[in-house]
């Protein structure tokens, strides 16, 4: 019976560690009385006071928090990095289950939002003012934060995909930047042949990447209508992806390095990982995480399935949401509005983030900005074009966080054994259907 006790003890321990993390990361609140720059939307309304805990890993938020605090001297914001993506969701689930240590505001990616909204862990923002924000954000992200009638977050960024590549690595191997996936395969072979330690990309099985690739190829594995869910990984779009990627896996053309690991950052810096097909939020991460790559990296449109095509997909992108357990929902919402629809947007753009607001995306100043890190390239031109080319009609599961957590149990096997991606996806589909049915969805 020590077993059950252990489980409980672990939950308590986790909660304890979390609160430690909170205290460890708090402090150095910016007390400087710099003249504030209140924005047009009035995010810095008079008389805000109190304290907020924000869980987010988006690096540009640091500056936004500092600005928000100087605009509202009576507000103290603790910005905590509780992990990236799934790690943070696990921590967040733990805190919600434990009933303590829940932050006021959390960064939640679009794919994960339905699960938290459905679990009634988030505050509906309509009455706090979000219902007036129609038209402020691009349709994709704005649609993603709505669940049923409710609005459960404000879009922070969007992630239209592009091909980020290390120009030096491509030049060294003597290959041109691929515009189609066939050319990509050829380039992958050439790069690995020129240097056995170099790969065109890394992949150890990443659920977000795989679903985005299927999205671009025109696949619709998930169909969600209320609680009716259909999962089908055998459609044409999925097959296009698996045929290509299986070749890359079979020929060992993908670096066996997990994204966001130390090895990954090293590889991006030293050219052994030559490219990333990833969301438009990547520039800020490259600048902060891969300082060695300055001047080497460039951005191009995502390779196409048909020559001359223009189809892209969203990869990641996240919102800020107010937790149901927030102490002061109005203050939390004021921060959301400041960061995602107010002056914070420009601050974050300056830091390299990719916005979800229509005004900024359409402005010339945004598109013509030259990025020193990217050798002066007008990166946003490429990314804004990608945002316009995103294929319509994609849906995520209302339990995508769980589905993604078992991705490596199923599809991941294709990377380390003789299992094929097709078999892996079939196993993933089956496991997801099984889970969905147990959670009360009607799943086929």
């Amino acid at each position, binding site marked *: *019976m*020590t*077993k*059950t*006790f*252990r*489980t*409980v003890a*672990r939950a308590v321990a986790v909660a304890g560690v979390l609160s430690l993390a909170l205290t460890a990361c708090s402090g150095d609140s910016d007390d400087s009385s710099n003249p504030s720059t209140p924005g047009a939307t009035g995010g810095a309304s008079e008389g805000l006071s109190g304290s907020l805990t924000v869980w987010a890993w988006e690096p540009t938020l640091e500056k936004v928090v500092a600005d928000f605090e100087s605009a509202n001297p009576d507000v103290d914001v603790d910005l905590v990095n509780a992990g990236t993506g*799934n790690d943070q969701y*696990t921590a967040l*689930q*733990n805190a919600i*289950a434990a009933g303590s240590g829940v932050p006021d505001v959390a960064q939640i990616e679009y794919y994960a939002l339905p*699960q938290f909204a*459905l*679990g009634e862990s988030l505050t509906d923002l309509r009455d706090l003012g979000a219902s007036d924000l129609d038209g402020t954000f691009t349709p994709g992200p704005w649609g993603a934060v709505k669940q049923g009638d409710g609005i459960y977050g404000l879009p922070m960024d969007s992630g239209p995909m592009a091909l980020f590549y290390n120009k030096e690595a491509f030049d060294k191997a003597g290959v041109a930047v691929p515009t189609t996936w066939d050319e990509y395969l050829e380039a992958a072979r050439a790069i690995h042949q020129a240097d056995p330690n170099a790969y065109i990309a890394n992949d*150890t*099985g990443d659920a977000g990447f795989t679903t985005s690739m299927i999205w671009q190829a025109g696949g619709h594995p998930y169909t969600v209508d209320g*609680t009716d869910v259909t999962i089908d990984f055998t459609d044409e779009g999925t097959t296009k992806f698996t045929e290509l990627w299986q070749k890359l896996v079979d020929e060992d053309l993908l670096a066996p*390095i*997990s994204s966001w*690991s130390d*090895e990954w950052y*090293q590889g991006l810096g030293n050219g052994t990982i030559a490219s990333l097909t990833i969301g438009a939020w990547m520039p800020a991460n490259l600048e902060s995480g891969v300082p060695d790559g300055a001047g080497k990296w460039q951005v191009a449109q995502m390779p196409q399935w048909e020559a001359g095509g223009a189809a892209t997909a969203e990869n990641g992108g996240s919102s800020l949401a107010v937790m149901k357990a927030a102490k002061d929902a109005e203050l939390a919402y004021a921060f959301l509005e400041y960061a995602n629809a107010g002056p914070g947007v420009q601050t974050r753009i300056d830091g390299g983030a990719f916005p979800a607001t229509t005004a900024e995306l359409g402005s010339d100043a945004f598109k013509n900005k030259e990025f020193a890190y990217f050798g002066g390239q007008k990166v946003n031109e490429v990314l804004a074009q990608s945002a316009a080319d995103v294929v319509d009609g994609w849906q995520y599961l*209302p*339990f995508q*966080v*769980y589905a993604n*957590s*078992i991705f*490596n*149990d199923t599809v*991941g*096997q294709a*990377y*380390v*054994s003789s299992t094929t991606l097709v078999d892996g996806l079939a196993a993933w589909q089956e496991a997801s259907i099984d*889970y969905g049915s*147990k*959670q*009360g*969805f009607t799943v086929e």
Partner: protein
Amino acid sequence: MASVSAVPAAVADRTRRSRPSWSGWGFVGPFLLVFALVFLAPIAYSVYLSLFRKQLVGGNAFVGTENYRTVFTDQQFWTGFGHVVAFLLVQVPIMLGIALLVALALDSGRLYGRSFFRISIFLPYAVPAVVATLMWGFMYGTRFGLVGNLNRAFDISLPNPLSPDLVLASIGNIVTWEFVGYNMLIFYSALRVVPASLYEAAEIDGAGQWRVIRAIKLPAIRGALVIATIFSIIGSFQLFNEPSILANLAPNAIATYFTPNLYAYSLSFSGQQYNYSATVAIVMGVVTMVIAYAVQLRGMRKEA
């Protein structure tokens, strides 16, 4: 003492049964309260949880023993269970064997620098499991780790310790490294209390070292052996830290249901299936108890 004074009291009270003496309860009360709160309540709550099922759609419902029936046909659970049983059958004998060997060597008195060996073999136990696993995880790395360095230095290609086929053995290696010192200490302390007169008698009878070990030392520490075995069984069944940390380095080799504990963790924290997770925990707890008890019975019977 208590029973002696209680007897006349009971006689006196025989006519007034309605007033039992509460003073005894007063003494054990505080303990019982804490015991109930800290030990019994979590178990009771887990059992309570395991009888329900909470869904994302449809809310909470009483399902009786359905969760238990599901466990017995749950292939993922039994895969994880298979891993810990294999671990138990292979790693525990190796670990205890090494620990016994080292304890006997230290006890033989023929080892030069005995206290140095004793402390250095015990030292890994003082390293937290998380740190130990991270350390070994770096060494296992085929690109920047020790394995990678060996491969490059000797131009060989060692198998990847974090591949699906080898990862259980790699975890066994870590656990062995961590716990040999601990078990050695249990054996060694049991050996130290064997009276020296027995050895003298054996020497007079002309028994060699090997004979002394078999006839005196091993029987003398049988109790310690049984205890160490039971601890190891419980430890194996609770395997969690090592696979959980290595899973970050080898996500495709360590599934979310690699061990029953890891499975219970994923069920509750990624899957929000707290009820089923509680069921898995209870079943595993009962299984561990039964096996540990069986080993204890068997060990003690031999001793008698």
